């Protein structure tokens, strides 16, 4: 037993290392880790708590009920207000007005959906600008679409 002292010291070191490892592990492993699986359970709540940016049509209703009603009955009924305008949070935040709502009158916005593309479903209403505009038109104004079409109910004669 001449080495018993050495062995005891070594054992002590091993035990100490284990204790340090255990403490470090406890400290560095997030508290909720492993509650549901191999991940930090608290993150689920954190993800749920992220702010909502796009409202639904209901968020426009209280102040713009008439416009929402008109748009909701026309050929653009399936187009969300916030697509052509902007997310509701740019306008209303916490019940207070946060800024002006964007009102784009650009032809580019219309053409996103209605420019004729060879990959678009043929049944979808689409135009070629130079064919669609009355002949003799000079330089095309950026808001020329609005001369004839109301963006909320764009279909003419119906």
């Amino acid at each position: 037993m001449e080495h018993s002292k050495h062995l005891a010291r070594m054992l002590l070191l091993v035990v100490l290392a284990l204790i340090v490892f255990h403490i470090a592990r406890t400290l560095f492993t997030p508290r909720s880790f492993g509650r549901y699986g191999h991940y930090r359970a608290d993150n689920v709540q954190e993800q749920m708590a992220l702010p909502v940016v796009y409202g639904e049509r209901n968020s426009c209703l209280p102040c713009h009920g008439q416009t929402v009603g008109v748009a909701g009955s026309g050929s653009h009924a399936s187009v969300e207000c916030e697509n052509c305008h902007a997310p509701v949070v740019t306008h209303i935040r916490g019940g207070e007005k946060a800024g002006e709502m964007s009102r784009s009158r650009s032809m580019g916005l219309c053409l996103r959906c209605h420019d004729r593309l060879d990959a678009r479903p043929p049944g979808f209403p689409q135009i070629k600008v130079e064919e669609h505009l009355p002949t003799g038109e000079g330089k095309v104004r950026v808001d020329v679409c609005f001369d004839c079409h109301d963006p909320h109910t764009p279909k003419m004669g119906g």
Partner: protein
Amino acid sequence: MKVGTQGNLTRRKFLVFSGTLGLTLVAGGLSGPGRYGAEGDEGRVDYNWEDHLYVYLIDTTRCIGCGMCVQACKRENAVPDGFFRTWVERYRIGESGRMQVDSPNGALNGFQPSPVDFKVSKGFFVPKMCNHCQNTPCTQVCPVGASYTTKDGAVLVDHVRCIGCGYCVQACPYGSRFLHPVTRVADKCTWCYHRITKGLRPACVLACPVGARAFGNLKNPDDPVRRIIATQRVAVLQPELLTRPNCYYIGIDKEVR
């Protein structure tokens, strides 16, 4: 003899050091707040994930390539410029077998008419996003448990836990993940987890003007998306990889991967 003494001294020093370190760590752990999520219950929402198993359906025959979904995703989730949680691809295929696929800036501003040097015999748009696979390769490779699947079927990334190694970005066969240029951690579609857990639709589904994107709950017997998947012919991307996506497609062609 002298050497031995020095050795003993070093060991003693080491033991003292270890003990001090251990005690310091314990003290630190007892006194300070926990590192992760100890801030309490703010923002908690009454929601039971056992009642949901989400599923996503994309009808490419309806998609018009307007890119409103990409725009909505960007705004809702503050996705950085040049990166996309969802994007739209335009496929144009000729009878000769020639094909052109493009997605200018992810279709954030839609598509422009652009010529191709062959006669297009069929063309269509395919919205792409995270497939929220049931057998997902991306979470399997995460070395720190930052990527995971929720009980309601969403594949999420813990931005606090992620170390930004990028393994998951490489593991995803659909190219749905990227490293965020500012936070330097993995980022991806969450199905707008903050919206769906409040009963709202994901921003892309909300924004789609033609109903090409739909979101459903497989645990609801009356769910229209569930019914479509159960009764109609649907496909998934790259089924040969056995990832079992929860994102189903209607009307995709063999060229779409």
